[in-house]
């Protein structure tokens, strides 16, 4: 397979096979609905081939890869400092959270640990990324169910967090702020105070959405009992994050694994719900945003002073070895498996993204539901296209 023409041929054959598989479904009886790649409910370019009988789903087959950007391959031709620019764009709504596990993996290989202040700032920005990400979900779920107003409130109040991220890092969406051994810069003056003020506003936003959507009878009627995932099924499909915790599995990497970040230094709790339906997933994420604001408040008060950069050489060469680090990202478990051969960049990187595993449950979950519930389930599972296709 070293010959490039063979590569082309192989990829051509596999593409043909994929098309043939879908064509067979189209020619069979019943209606076949192509949800996507351009469809309002798929947040981008996820395609779901849904076979319908009336409005009832007979089978659903997610087809991903329309936005594949080859980040795993690209990391092999970049230096470590350049990689963070790329991986910012995996889950674009909570982009800082993508950088952290990769940097931690590289630090693990180099046997460096960031100084305490850098760890604190990383954790604060990590939780801010979670708020920025999940607040979009909280509004977006309303849009998917027909209530168009909450999403505007979500985007308005998300700005408080984005402005803070911008003033600390210089980038609203893609901070590219994390460095091996620490951070690019220290926090600006007065940032911690304005952060605590913004957290009060975010808590108010959570209350507002709770009144507008969560307590709305129509919203409850649309979400309760829709798309129920039992705990064992959720574990078998490798779900993670809020989708898993809403099914009653008490598992949060922030608490359960020890890493060089500051969660262990503050008092917070992991929310778990037993219902496993769409409503539980929404409620759980709302509670997680609230919990994140409390974590940030505590970290702002307890932040230590000192350096933000450990002693690392100017030109970074990571010693040969393999390391896997995973963290609890806004969407679920995200991990980087980095193999180094001692060069300027990684030899090979495997990126474990939460959304890819989360949508793997769709064929099981969508079987037998009605078309409106498909949208509820897609919205409540909450995936981000960049996170599926990388």
């Amino acid at each position, binding site marked *: 397979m070293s010959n490039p023409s063979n590569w082309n041929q192989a990829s051509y054959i596999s593409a043909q096979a994929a098309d043939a598989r879908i064509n067979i479904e189209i020619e069979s009886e019943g*209606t*076949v*609905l192509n949800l996507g790649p351009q*469809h*309002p*409910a798929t947040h981008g370019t996820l395609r779901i081939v849904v076979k*319908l009988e009336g*409005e009832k789903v007979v089978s659903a087959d997610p087809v991903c890869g329309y936005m594949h950007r080859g980040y795993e391959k690209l990391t092999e031709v970049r230096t470590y400092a350049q990689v963070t620019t790329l991986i910012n764009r995996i889950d674009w709504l909570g982009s800082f959270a993508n950088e952290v596990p990769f940097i931690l993996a590289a630090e693990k290989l180099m046997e460096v640990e960031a100084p305490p202040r850098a760890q604190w700032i990383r954790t604060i920005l990590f939780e801010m990324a979670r708020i920025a990400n999940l607040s979009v979900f909280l509004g977006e779920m*309303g*849009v*998917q*169910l*027909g*209530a*168009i*107003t909450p999403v*505007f*409130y979500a985007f*308005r109040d998300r700005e408080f967090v984005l402005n803070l991220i911008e003033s600390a890092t210089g980038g609203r969406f893609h901070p590219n702020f994390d460095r091996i051994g620490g951070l690019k810069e220290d926090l600006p003056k007065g940032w911690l105070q304005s952060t605590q003020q913004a957290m009060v506003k975010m808590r108010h936003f959570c209350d507002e959405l709770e009144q507008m*959507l969560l307590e*709305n009878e*129509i*919203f409850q*009627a*649309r979400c309760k009992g829709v798309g129920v995932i039992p705990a064992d099924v959720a574990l078998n499909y490798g779900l993670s994050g809020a989708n898993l915790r809403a099914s009653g599995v008490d598992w949060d990497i922030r608490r359960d694994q020890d890493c060089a970040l500051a969660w262990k230094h503050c008092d917070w709790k992991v929310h778990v719900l037993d219902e496993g339906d769409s409503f539980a997933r929404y409620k759980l994420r709302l509670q997680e945003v609230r919990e994140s604001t409390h974590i940030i408040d505590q970290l702002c008060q307890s932040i230590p002073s000192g350096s933000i950069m450990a002693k690392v050489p100017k030109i970074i060469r990571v010693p040969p070895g393999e390391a896997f680090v995973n963290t609890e990202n806004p969407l679920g478990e995200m991990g980087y498996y980095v193999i180094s051969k001692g060069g300027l960049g990684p030899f090979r990187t495997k990126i474990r993204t939460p959304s890819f595993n989360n949508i793997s449950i769709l064929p099981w979950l969508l079987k037998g539901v*009605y*078309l*409106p*519930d*498909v*949208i509820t389930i897609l919205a409540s599972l909450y995936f981000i296209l960049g996170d599926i296709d990388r």
Partner: protein
Amino acid sequence: MISIAVLGEGYLFLIGKAILLLIVIPAFSMLIGYSFLLKMMSHMQDRLGPMEAGPHGIFQLLADGLKFLQKEDLMPNGSDRFIFKAAPIVMLVSTFLLYVVIPIGPHMVLENLHTGIFYVLGVSSISVIAILMAGWASSNQYSLLGALRAGGQLIAYEIPLVLSVVGVIIESGTLSLQGIVKAQANGNLFGLPIRNQYLISQFIGFFIFLISAQAELAQTPFDMPLAETEIVAGYMTEYSGFRFLLFYLSETATAFALSAIASTLFLGGWAVPFIHGTLAQVIGPFVLLAKTMLIAFLIFWFRFSLPRFREDQLQAFAWKFLIPLGLVNILITAIFKVAL
């Protein structure tokens, strides 16, 4: 037969009335579109909405309309071309016919039919046919799903709409809209010395009428036929340019017409207490406009606040709640009418 005095009788005047409607319908459609769909929605969502075309963007819809006229006339492959073209026109005809019987003053109505409200309920159902035509002719699964949902929904909500109106008919004793307005202006509340707007005695009917009108217009808690996150745009998915404009026009103009009918039936129409004669003739249209905008405000307020029902919940709501409630309302009204 009382017609608009200035128009008189005869064929020429009939054409005059048609032209009047052709001016009035787009004007009211734009009024509703601008004030609610653009501005009220934007302010509810903490944004400004269109601000560039004219002061506060009042010409935005005009600009949009002109843009739609310039678009290419697209038709999907495999569509039934004749029916595809006819559907928006049938839709507009349904709206057009609604305006004919709405009284706007003591002597101002295009045709004062003696069976006015019966006629309104009849012609408003024509839109179902247009929607089914559009959905079937588009040869698109989304359109077909949307059209079938619309068919089920509009027929289901037609029944509570009729039942809610029956109470008004029993109280006023007439089917003519002009007659209903006069009955409200002159009548009293079951013998009490209070002028009776049917909102007071028929509040259950008003409640049912509002909900059913919301469903007939496919506005948000009941917008399954158009649900943009599920079936893209329902029966309108394949329509663009001029034909989309006709659907849009008909949607907003029907919203205005149904609001006007609701204010005629339940809020007393053009009539104001203690004002008679020429003055009533002059201010009648404005009174009706104010009441209509109030009802339309309610409709769009609900639209921008609520999520949408699922199809089965929507049907259950109509058959298990609204229709029994409507029947009970008729029973109570009849008992009061006979007893008092």
